[in-house]
């Protein structure tokens, strides 16, 4: 479907399973990380990914089934590149039990809520707890309040987000997939926080 970045990367490694060992395959300058997006349905997980990977925004909502797989590589200022292998999971309840399939072995988890929906903020906290219990302990976790363009409908304050993120050792940011606000920043910040392999 004409989208370059998610087209097959023929050079990519041959690692079995959903989990590229430890989620991060490293040589010092080229990192490859598995990233999983979690959150309630309708908070905009797919929109964030599509904005990041393809620079697109489609206001018609398309319910994600199971999980979509996309990848995008970014270059950091220190000339390292990070290839994100992104699992964009479905927010529907029926897939909750299957989430471990996607987050197992992930190096990064991005937990998304909708700033206009307190329920989705609750759901985000459920996912954070779930990851603390079952995710890998050195996982980089980000808490994202999406739909920041809808200021007038805001029901979750910035402070609430910050407080919860701080308490749980997460990185916090508010984004808008619609206006592209903070989308690239989100992934750049994640990249900076990744554990670097010690050059051997």
């Amino acid at each position: 479907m004409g989208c370059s970045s998610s087209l097959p990367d023929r050079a990519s490694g041959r690692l079995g399973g959903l989990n590229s060992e430890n989620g991060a395959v490293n040589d010092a300058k080229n990192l490859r990380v598995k990233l999983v997006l979690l959150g309630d349905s309708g908070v905009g997980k797919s929109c964030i990914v599509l904005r990041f990977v393809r620079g697109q925004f489609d206001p018609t909502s398309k319910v994600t089934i199971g999980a979509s797989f996309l990848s995008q590589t970014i270059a950091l200022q220190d000339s390292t590149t990070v290839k994100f292998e992104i699992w964009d999971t479905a927010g529907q309840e029926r897939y909750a039990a299957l989430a471990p399939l996607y987050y197992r072995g992930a190096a990064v988890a991005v937990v998304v809520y909708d700033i206009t929906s307190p329920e989705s903020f609750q759901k985000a906290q459920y996912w954070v707890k779930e990851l603390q219990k079952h995710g890998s302990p050195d996982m980089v976790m980000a808490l994202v309040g999406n739909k920041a363009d809808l200021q007038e409908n805001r029901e979750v304050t910035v402070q609430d987000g910050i407080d919860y993120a701080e308490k749980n050792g997460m990185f916090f940011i508010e984004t808008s997939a619609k206006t592209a606000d903070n989308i690239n920043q989100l992934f750049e910040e994640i990249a900076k926080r990744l554990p670097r392999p010690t050059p051997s």
Partner: protein
Amino acid sequence: MSSSDGGDDGSASSGAGSGPVVLGSKPIEDGFSQLRVTDLANGGAANDGDGEAAAAEGSGGREGIAAEVGEVEDGGAASARAGGRSEIEEIGEARVMWRSNSEGEGEAQGSPSSSGYAGERGSSSGGSGIGEEEGEEEDEIEEVRSDAVSDSQAAWMPGKRHVMQDDASISWRKRKKHFFILSHSGKPIYSRYGDEHKLAGFSATLQAIISFVENGGDRVKLVRAGKHQVVFLVKGPIYLVCISCTEEPYESLRGQLELIYGQMILILTKSVNRCFEKNPKFDMTPLLGGTDVVFSSLIHSFSWNPATFLHAYTCLPLGYATRQAAGAVLQDVADSGVLFAILMCKHKVVSLVGAQKASLHPDDMLLLANFVMSSESFRTSENFSPICLPRYNPMAFLYAYVHYLDVETYLMLLTTSSDAFYHLKDCRMRIETVLLKSNVLSEVQRSMLDGGMRVEDLPIDPLPRSGSLLPRLGQGRPVTDSQESLKEAYAGIGGPAGLWHFIYRSIYLDQYVASEFSPPFNTLRQQKRLYRAYQKMYASMHDKGIGAHKTQFRRDEHYVLLCWVTQDFELYAAFDPLADKASAIKTCNRVCQWVKDVENEIFLLGASPFSW
């Protein structure tokens, strides 16, 4: 309307003197001592009962339904006593009809003391009930009709419409065909129209009907109320109900409910039953979140996709070598631990391979393709999702890797291993490379543009053995003079002898081929009517109660329908209503020959051990 064929009526009998039928080479004339003729007298009124007439004629027994009906009758009697406004009518072949009196509507609302079913009616919000609905339908039918026209002619929009409606709104009640899924405690799970939660009262009513009959140790299958049929299907803790005034046969509607149930199992597996064991009042709607579009697209396909009643799949016409090339690379993948590898273009199969002895049921393919095509999410990127194939194993999830290779062509790789994503991704890359190199994808697109078999192209003389459907592969078909003049003689409508359309179903292959629609089937509405007519024929040909028919010839004001069933194939053909019977039969023989001549291109051969 001609009824000149009436003389053959006497010879109509099922299976009389039928020897074993040899592979399609045997011309249809041989079977014609068993031809059953059902010439309809005329017009719409007669239409109503033609299914029954044909069925009753064949032989007496309809034990299955009769037995079921006994119980309904009791229930019905209770209601009749209580409300004093329903009457039960036992018609010839022991189906029960519930009828409201013509003045039923007014009375129904004014009888608060009624009990039994009638009471349930009163208590459901808005006082709606099957009986009243019918009363209203009478004056509104025109409006509904025009609605249906615009609906079917405009492009179909996926997703749930009319969410604001509930059983209190007239527009909701006027819908011709409702589908409901509910739990055994009466909780709504899905409704084709309207918001499920607003339909709680209505759902409870349906549940009450079902459990009332179940309490008597029986099951309710069908209730007739005037023009409406209410069809019930009980699957453990899940109840499915269709309320329809489309005159489709019971067997067809029941088959549609089975598919809807299968679609639900595909999404959730049958282990959802456990939720009801733990908590009978379990609310299942959140589990199906976001799947309205899957169900609405399935229901829509009941009116355009013959696979829904033929229980067979159809292939995209392709040169034999092209399909072989696709099959070979899929086979490689299947040997590496993939359970099924399926390459499809819209709802047509390009190629399909199963590991070792695994075989894929056509209904599973239909449901899987519907699931993938109706969910936009698959089009945006690679996807890895749990799905269940109800006919393969209703209890367990498989994992499906789905990827669109172009706008309409998609690859599905199914596996039992939840860790196989990267392997399947590799497989897909291999497959994609081969398909591109061997031009399979461009051939697929070309075939989509060219279309399939057209009745206008039906060869007059048998083709040489190497016949080809695809002109570019067969170096063009020589157009003979006689063919040209014949076309002119039929004034550009349809094929020889007034042939308008046909469907050929190969029994061993589980596949069918349908001719392209050509004039006079210009609108979706006409196409839908034809499919409904085929569907009715299919049901009557497969009626277990009266034994299998071999042939059926039916004439009404819209067309002549001819159906011919052998051990190897089933042929359904539609002709001009004035078509001559003898030449129609001759034409059917020619269609069968034509299908045989081009079977390499229209069917996937080698998918089953019987196919060569």
